């Protein structure tokens, strides 16, 4: 065991020669929403998740605001949500039980815990219902000697030391802390630290969380791990040239999409009344379409339906709906009905419909089958004899 620790420690030291090397054995075990935050799967909540995505609807949901609203009272032109309906970020008391005295001193010295919502500090903070996400993470427990870690958010220098001063764009989620709970640790982050105070349609961004560990013996021995969250609030463009063709109990819709160069899928909506983006709850739909056409089936002949098509990007951002088209399923005479209407005698099925001539032919057929089987049997016997 000791030998193993020495080897692993050596590896860490070697990696540390490049200051922003990955942390050996780093893993995000689980990400959860707290205080009413329900994270979508695309947020990458499991240990196996390789990407962490947030789209426009996610942003509204995680911040618990409606489109056009903002949690930031200074935002111009945006509707301000009163604190009574959505709890605005507020300063929380920091009771950092995990950190040592030294760590606390260092944090005080650097004065870097400058998040406006006061979210820095360890696991003892009181939260008073602020919407948060928690990240359960761990590193390999075989590090030699005493180590420190810190967690920052924003746009930071990857090679920074654990107690580097915070900047306007890089603030601490957790100050320099002794790395004592090797197997697993949890950091809770207010959603506003990750997403900001509003969701600006059309914008894209990337938010990074930096995990840094550093040896107490040699400050040059350190490693860094980055967790990246991609925010994409830019919906794809609308489809054009929506055309509806009426069939029997079905409507076939086709469309063009010249504007979207990224990979997109399509979602077809239909309903027997006019609808818009705000009234989609009861509207039937079919998603994940890659072709620019779809046949809606199971419709009622003679009933009018409205149809719309939305575009979705990799983040599941949904475009606005173009002008709906409408159509009514009609009666159609198919190939068999045409045959029957013209007087065709065939009744279908697999019963015997042979006439007298047919019966005679069937008898010939039977004899032929017997002869064939006999011939094949004879041939096989001859072949077998030759083989002997």
């Amino acid at each position, binding site marked *: 065991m000791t030998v193993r620790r020495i080897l692993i420690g050596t590896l860490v030291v070697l990696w540390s020669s490049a200051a922003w090397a990955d942390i050996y054995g780093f893993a995000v075990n689980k990400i959860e929403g707290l205080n009413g935050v329900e994270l979508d799967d695309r947020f990458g909540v499991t240990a196996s998740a390789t990407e962490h995505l947030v789209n426009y609807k996610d942003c509204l949901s995680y911040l618990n605001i409606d489109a056009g609203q903002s949690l930031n009272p200074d935002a111009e032109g945006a509707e301000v949500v009163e604190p009574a309906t959505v709890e605005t970020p507020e300063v929380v008391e920091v009771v950092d039980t995990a950190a040592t005295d030294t760590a606390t001193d260092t944090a005080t010295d650097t004065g870097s815990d400058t998040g406006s919502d006061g979210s820095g500090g360890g696991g003892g903070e009181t939260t008073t219902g602020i919407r948060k996400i928690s990240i359960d993470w761990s590193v390999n427990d075989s590090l030699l000697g005493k180590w420190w870690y810190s967690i920052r958010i924003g746009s930071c220098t990857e090679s920074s030391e654990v107690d580097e001063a915070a900047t306007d764009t890089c603030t601490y989620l957790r100050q320099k802390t002794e790395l004592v709970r090797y197997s697993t640790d949890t950091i809770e982050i207010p959603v506003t630290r990750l997403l900001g105070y509003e969701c600006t349609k059309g914008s894209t961004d990337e938010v990074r969380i930096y995990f840094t560990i550093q040896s107490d013996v040699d400050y040059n021995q350190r490693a860094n791990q980055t967790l990246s969250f991609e925010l994409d609030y830019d919906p794809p463009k609308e489809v054009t040239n929506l055309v509806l063709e009426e069939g*029997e109990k*079905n409507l076939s819709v086709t469309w063009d999409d010249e504007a979207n160069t990224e990979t997109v899928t399509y979602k077809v909506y239909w309903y027997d009344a006019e609808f818009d983006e705000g009234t989609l709850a009861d509207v039937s739909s079919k998603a994940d379409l890659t072709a620019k056409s779809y046949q809606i089936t199971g419709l009622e002949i003679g009933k009018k339906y409205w149809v719309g098509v939305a575009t979705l990007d990799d983040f599941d951002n949904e475009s606005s709906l173009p002008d709906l088209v409408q159509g009514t399923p009609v009666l159609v*005479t198919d*190939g068999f009905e045409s045959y029957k209407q013209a007087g065709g005698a065939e*009744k279908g099925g697999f019963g015997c*419909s042979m006439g007298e001539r047919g019966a005679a032919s069937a008898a010939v057929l039977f004899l032929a089958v017997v002869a064939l089987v006999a011939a094949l049997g004879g041939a096989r016997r001859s072949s077998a004899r030759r083989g002997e």
Partner: protein
Amino acid sequence: MSRIALALLVGVVCPAVLVAESPRNVNLEFKLAAWYVPEVDSEFAAGVHPYKDVYGDSSLLLFQSRADYLIYSGVFGTVAAGGGFGYGQKTGHGFLSDGETKASDSTTLHLLPLEFGVLYAYDWLAQRWSIPVVPYGRFDFAHAFWWFTDGVGDTASYTVNDEKAADGLGGTWGFRLTGGARLLLDVFAPAMARTFDVDFGVNNSYLLVEYVWCKLDDFGSSSSIHLGGSYINFGLAFEF
């Protein structure tokens, strides 16, 4: 000197006989039909052609495969017996209720023909002297499963007064006469043919073209759909 010349002549004319081939037991064919328009409209009086109205008069796309067991092979040629199956379909557009306007809905006739019968091929010249053309003929009994589908892919049916009067699927018996010719490919690439035989046991490879006259109407039944027709098959054949 004359012996050397004779040996060279034999080597050029009939290289296939210089290397012993593995035994031939099975004939395998893969074919694609051209110009096959089922004679559905032959059931009706002149001027009535529901099949043509819906599906047009272009060929149905039909793929077939077949295997025959060689019963006899010698100086009189080869006799084999076996069977095969295929799949074909033709898609058209039905009509709106006015009976004249074509609907956007497609409707498809599907065919799954089965056949079994006897093949005769005069291939002695090809086997003995490498003359590459092999004429052949075949007689088969046939049975075709068929079904129509409507605009949403469901099996069609015919209703009268909201009651189903007929199913748009069934099976029809008949027979098939075939005459054609095969082109023996081995003579054009003998080395490749030998490799094909050694590695895969394929004695001979052929290109084939055949004319088919098919009568599929339950042997003349007046209550059966007529799916026969005359058409040309193109394909490949292999002897193992």
